[in-house]
């Protein structure tokens, strides 16, 4: 099965764009969601580079676990000492 080189170009361009959007986002939750998306697209890139082991690891750990850790951190950083939510962060 031959893949058009434009697929790779589109993948790289989307990767760069999502990375820039994740870094430029004001809302932390949105930034983490974009990071998870970035991780999934990066695992696609690894698959295109014929590295299935790295692709599996990237999807599971890079996108899944790190994304979950960061979401957890956002949730904790929003919590004020009396237990209510601080919506500013």
């Amino acid at each position, binding site marked *: 099965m031959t893949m058009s080189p434009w697929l790779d170009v589109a993948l790289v361009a989307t990767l760069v764009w999502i990375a820039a959007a994740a870094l430029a986002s004001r809302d932390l939750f949105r930034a983490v969601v974009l990071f998870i998306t970035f991780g999934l697209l990066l695992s696609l890139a690894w698959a295109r580079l014929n590295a299935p*082991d790295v692709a599996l690891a990237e999807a599971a750990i890079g996108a899944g676990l790190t994304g979950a850790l960061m979401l957890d951190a956002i949730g904790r950083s929003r919590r004020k000492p009396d237990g209510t939510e601080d919506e500013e962060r």
Partner: protein
Amino acid sequence: MSRAPVALVVGLCTAFGVALALILPELPDAPPDLALGVVTHLPDSGVAHPVTAVLLNFRAYDTLLEVVVLLMAALAARALPPEATDAAAAKWGRPVFDTIDRVALPIVVLLAVHLLLIGASRPGGAFHAAAVLTGGGVLLRLSRGLSVDTITRGRCAFGVLVAGPGVFAIVATVCAAATGYFIGYPAQFAGMLILVIEAALALSIAFALWALFP
């Protein structure tokens, strides 16, 4: 953040990216020696997949140190004061979580065992199985508030964490006594030893990653 430093950093990164894109096609082809060596010695390594052979046999020392680093990260995470269980977990709709638990957790266990066993011949192995198991652990943490500390008390948790690198180190030392090389598996036992080490590593790494979620 103010505009000027951000713009500078973005500019530098873009310039670096463009420079890399220009240089990369000019690089000479990678010498085939290492890949050739792996393919030549693959039948002796005990597994059929070259990546697993490299990770668990040819460069097993790197994997051992890597797992010790993970252990240290888990110990550092556990050194922090424990967080109170989320009150929010009790507010969420129980039916959704119960259904997700009932459907997803058996699949998680099956998938983890499958990935562990298939690592000998296909992409898989200890780290992938550990990542899937950690996903199950995070699910438990979210739906039932089960963190590492509710499953095991202090020393037991430490024991599970150390079990992985411990088994690896013990096997490596026994092999040093048997064949004269640290982590030099005897050829006829290599596959079985790698499987034992991978199983212990998967449990240990899953526990270590689960411990990162307080």
